[in-house]
């Protein structure tokens, strides 16, 4: 067990270094931040001075070594666009992204599971077919389009919900939350719905297919034969056994939601890490881009690592070699 975890940890570190290197080398193609930090009318001498003051005159390997050295101490430099420490910016943006992604995942579970159960139990009804078709259109429409539609309907036409921002936030220590104020909750509805549409579809389809599978198994047939009520069979036995893969997928999806909230955050000016990243790309803000990519890499690595370890704990077949060794 310990050896397994250590091996996976070492692999994770290698992955992180690779992510860092690829991210950093990509930035040579993003362009020159200096040209965007100065007005087009600036003189060549101005540009040279700023380039020097940013350390951009150093060769690539020195810039990368400095970056890794500083990153290990949690220091990602100063954002060229906002003039503030990157680590601080990321910490400030983390709560907004986490709240948005979590709410989207909760929406996915709360709507996806019942719909999945419904479409599995009433697989031939026209409502099920309609729901499945709708879910397909929902998932194939681009995220930003859905967001703009929602803004048009609920902000411009109906004037019910805000079209951008996070509303009033409450500060609890390092954390800021919009969940405790009315304006914060109102501001959350549209972006969370936009982002939640994909997990709704995903979970609904997953629950449906798992449920259909489970309903065909022998123990369901035996349960019915024992004369249990429909409700007891469907929710007591079938649904419970459906949920194991759903929980795994939800965990993995949460990671994706955090990483890919970029579009939704841009449409709604949601002050999260995704918005920070996309603006950094446009500004060629290298320190922010590098730090963000490393952070997202880290989130994925950690999610995968914990999933692997959980599987190892849960699934006895993975421990087979030890069991075999013990048997001899």
């Amino acid at each position, binding site marked *: 067990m310990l050896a397994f975890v250590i091996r996976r940890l070492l692999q994770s570190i290698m992955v992180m270094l690779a992510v860092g290197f690829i991210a950093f080398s990509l930035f040579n193609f*993003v*362009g020159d931040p200096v040209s965007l930090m100065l007005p087009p009318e600036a003189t060549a001498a101005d540009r040279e001075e700023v380039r020097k003051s940013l350390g951009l005159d150093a060769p690539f390997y020195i810039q990368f070594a400095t970056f890794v050295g500083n990153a290990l101490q949690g220091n990602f430099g100063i954002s060229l666009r*906002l003039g503030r420490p990157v680590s601080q910016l990321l910490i400030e943006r983390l709560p907004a992204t986490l709240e948005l992604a979590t709410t989207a995942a909760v929406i996915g579970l709360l709507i996806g599971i019942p719909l999945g159960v419904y479409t599995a139990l009433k697989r031939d009804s026209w409502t099920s077919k309609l729901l499945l078709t709708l879910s397909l259109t929902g998932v194939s429409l681009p995220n930003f389009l859905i967001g*703009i539609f929602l803004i048009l309907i609920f902000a411009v036409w109906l004037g019910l919900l805000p079209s951008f921002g996070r509303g009033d936030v409450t500060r609890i220590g390092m954390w800021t939350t919009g969940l405790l104020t009315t304006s914060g909750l109102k501001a959350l509805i549209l972006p969370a719905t936009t982002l939640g549409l994909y997990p709704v579809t995903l979970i609904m389809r997953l629950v449906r297919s798992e449920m259909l599978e489970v309903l065909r198994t022998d123990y369901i047939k035996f349960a019915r034969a024992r004369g249990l009520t429909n409700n007891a069979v469907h929710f007591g036995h079938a649904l419970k056994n459906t949920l194991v893969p759903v929980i795994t997928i939800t965990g993995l999806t949460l990671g994706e939601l955090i990483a890919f909230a970029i579009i939704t955050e841009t*449409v709604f000016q949601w002050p999260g890490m995704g918005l920070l990243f996309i603006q950094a790309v446009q500004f060629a803000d290298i320190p922010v881009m590098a730090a963000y990519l490393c952070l997202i890499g880290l989130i994925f690595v950690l999610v995968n690592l914990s999933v692997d370890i959980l599987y190892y704990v849960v699934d006895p077949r993975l421990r087979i070699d030890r069991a075999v060794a013990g048997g001899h």
Partner: protein
Amino acid sequence: MNHAAPIRSAFVIAICALFIAAADAKTLRYASQDDPQTLDPHSANLQPTTRVLAQVYEGLVGRDRNFKLVPALAVSWSQPDAKTWRFKLRSNVKFHDGQSFSADDVVFSVERALHPLSQLKSSLQGVAGARKVDNFTVDLAMKEPNPVLLNHLFQFRILSREWAVKNRAEAPQNYKDREDTYASRNTNGTGPFKVTLRQPDVKTVLVANGDWWNKNSPEKGNLTQVDLLPVKSNATRAAALLSGEVDFVIDPPPQDTARLKANANVKVVEGAEARVQYLAFDTNRSELMYSDVKGKNPLKDVRVRQAIAHAIDVEAIKEKVMRGLSVPTGSMIGPGVQGYSKEAEKRYAFDKEKAKSLLAEAGYPNGFAITLDCGNVQPAADICQAIPPMLSQVGIRASPNIVPQATYYPKLQKFDTSMYILSWGSVTSDALYTLQLLLHTSTGENTGLGDSNYGRYSNPKMDELISRIKVESDMKKRDALIREALLLNNRDVAVLPLHQALVPWAMRKNVDAVFSPNNIPYFFRFKLN
């Protein structure tokens, strides 16, 4: 009944007071796609930053609502000799933290703006240093005479010496040392607004400064607070204005202005920004990098450049690309800029036959192929696609090459182009800066001459004119020299000006805004009705 009356009137007064207080609180919610880079007054020199700092910090001179230079923190000035400017300072001015303003602050701010890390050195063009004469008199010593120093000084911002020293922000922010200075997050100016909240990319709050020295100015509006709300996405920004969540959008998306105008609650004010879009040519190489002509450079021939000028239908660009929001011009500087002349505005007429015959005369009866480089910002990218079909009608087969802005400038700086589109703002409101950076022979030695002359146009006559304009202090003679230089550019087609873009500001009907040609709103002049 009698004893009830005072209570009732007190109640009425309280209600009235409440209403007056409510009527007095005028908060303008302002949206733009960019957020200021920093709040340090001498660090960044970009529009989003200036748009905030111009509300907070003031300079020695200001501009009135017609953009005429007026006294600000200086009440008067004189030139005791050609190399000295003397400023008498205003005496009753207080910084936002309550300290009094004096000559020490000016001397300190001059030194700070001339610091190598400062991006605002151009606001002190020609200035070698400052010297305190007495508490309310300052001399600026010049390295070289600058007859239009006041135009430059308009951009120069003054901050409190004591405050900067106390908060260890004596020098502008240094990015390399990963510094996050106090002055990049806090402000202490003398201006009409103070910053009370700063959340990058979320919200910046400006509150009216009740102790502002100029609060009785007849130009003053009625805003008590301005909330700056950056909204990156074009569609969302327009939606926020339509839904009434913001009152003022400085950069409405061009494709939405018609829709915004059609809305009964929204109005659009259009003004001409002192910025000219232009086309420029590689006139230096003996063979173009991106063309099918081998062994020679067709753009070296003035007749070819004139043919291109004749082939471009700038009215069509105005109508189809700019949706009416442009003023075609033949001059690199617009009205309101020192040295402007009507004569230099004259464009080459749109005349395809003339263009064809000029090309034939130059030895290219069948035209040639060439690449047109542009950055991926609007409207340059759209113009970049509109021009090639026009050129193809006279035989020049141009293909547009649109690249991200962050790679575009480095490309130009390496002279890696044959023909390109850029825009140029008369930041100093004077022609010299434009002429010497765009049209002077490029020295390649960071001397400030020809730095932005990426086509490396070179004409000794132009160089001579520019060097004379630089030192001429008789404004009449100077304006005549500028006119001569602008006319020479027209004849030579060194760069081909296309138009001045009209900048739309979109706002709710109850907002009363005053447009300024530097595209910066001065909120103290705004009114909310």
